[in-house]
């Protein structure tokens, strides 16, 4: 049976893995290859690198970093943050990434997803969706649901998250990385209603993200949110839990995991 995946997410800037609180006080967290190797040894099923500054000057640095990691760590690697064009996909794949994650660029130009999937295959095209529950007048006028935000969560696009996820899968996205902005950073657990709504509606795998504070939250994302994979950053970075502990907890709850 297919195992449910645990995916640690690593923030990258200037070709280094960093950690910080709410994007401030970023500190160097160590060598990317060593960190990736450590998560691999703990049993991480994949790794996601999020380029949090992603300026054009930075691009060469993350390419070198992915090259270094890919030559030593043999599990799937996803790169997100500042992926805009089909040529970005090509360069990241050539550097050793297995998947590339689009966010704002897909909103600005949905055709880029069809083009990238057509050229390199759906298996390497992830669409990241930052979703926030509609409230107040928005919810009154348009009904309950979630809106899609772009530009790192700063701009409400007015797109409905469910419709957007369906559209992206229809255009060839092979996977949806779904982040709840309401929960991100709260440690209150995933937005399970959001996760389940999207996961039950699209034919491709959904990765739940945003809000993990303990290991049961991960299991809830799978069992109650119907996610195919769960992504977390801070609980692993700060040494609160290892990936191995997370898998053991999921296994105790009856979830198939690769141990």
């Amino acid at each position: 049976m297919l195992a449910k995946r645990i995916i640690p997410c690593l923030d990258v800037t200037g070709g280094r893995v960093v950690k910080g609180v709410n994007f401030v006080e970023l500190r160097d967290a160590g060598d990317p290859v060593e960190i990736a190797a450590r998560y691999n040894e703990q049993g991480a099923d994949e790794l996601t690198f999020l380029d949090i500054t992603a300026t054009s000057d930075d691009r060469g640095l993350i390419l070198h970093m992915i090259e270094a990691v890919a030559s030593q760590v043999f599990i799937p690697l996803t790169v997100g943050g500042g992926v805009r064009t089909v040529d970005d996909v090509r360069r990241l794949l050539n550097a050793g990434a297995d998947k590339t994650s689009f966010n704002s660029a897909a909103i600005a130009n949905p055709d880029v997803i069809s083009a990238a999937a057509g050229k390199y295959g759906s298996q390497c095209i992830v669409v990241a969706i930052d979703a926030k529950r509609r409230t107040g007048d928005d919810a009154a006028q348009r009904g309950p649901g979630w809106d899609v935000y772009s530009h790192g969560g700063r701009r409400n696009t007015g797109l409905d998250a469910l419709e957007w996820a369906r559209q992206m899968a229809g255009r060839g996205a092979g996977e949806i990385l779904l982040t709840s902005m309401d929960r991100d950073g709260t440690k209150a657990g995933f937005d399970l209603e959001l996760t389940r709504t999207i996961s039950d509606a699209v034919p491709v795998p959904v990765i739940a993200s945003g809000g993990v504070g303990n290991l049961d939250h991960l299991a809830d994302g799978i069992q109650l949110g119907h996610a195919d994979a769960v992504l977390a950053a801070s609980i692993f970075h700060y040494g609160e839990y290892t990936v191995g502990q997370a898998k053991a907890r999921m296994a105790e709850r009856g979830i198939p995991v690769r141990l």
Partner: protein
Amino acid sequence: MKTVAVVDYGMGNLRSVAQAVLHVARGSGFEVVVTSRPEDVRAADRIVLPGQGAMPDCMRELAQSGLRASVLEAAAAKPLFGVCVGMQMLLDRSAEGPTDGLGLIHGEVLRFDLEGRLQPDGSRYKVPQMGWNQVFQTQPHPIWDGVPDASYFYFVHSFYVRPSDARHSAGQADYGTRFTAAVARDNIFATQFHPEKSADQGLALYRNFLHWTP
């Protein structure tokens, strides 16, 4: 020095496969070449045939690159390891398109038909199958040496192979249906999953391949 050729016919990204083979080849006396030249494929001692994307596209590129004949010659005589679509191409035909495969292993390639079906936990089946699944070794084979039965390997695929002769199935996995995850015949071994993305157990398969004497 003995060489392993990773065949580059222009489909997808060979870097991961090449890196993993290079990793296990260190100190083994093997040189790894990623090549698009038929003469390199003819000169190599062992062949790795990767593949990504749609099988009809891969077959077309293999023909247009001029590498098809050298791959067929290699498949007749040398150890050959096919990966993903590089495995699917070994069969006769695919539901993915009207193109014939290489016909080295008789049988066909089918699409997962899981629309609307639910997994045991109540969630829906997703296609592609993406992630780690257990592979049950259906026959002993030198490529499985040291790899425990039911080990997890990393899959990403919407199509799977069905060999006409069950003896050519070397491993199976479950995803809504029991399907063939590895095939073997004489000097050929191939996997639907990606050994290069399957951590230590995946690297073990490539290591075994370098030492395999069919």
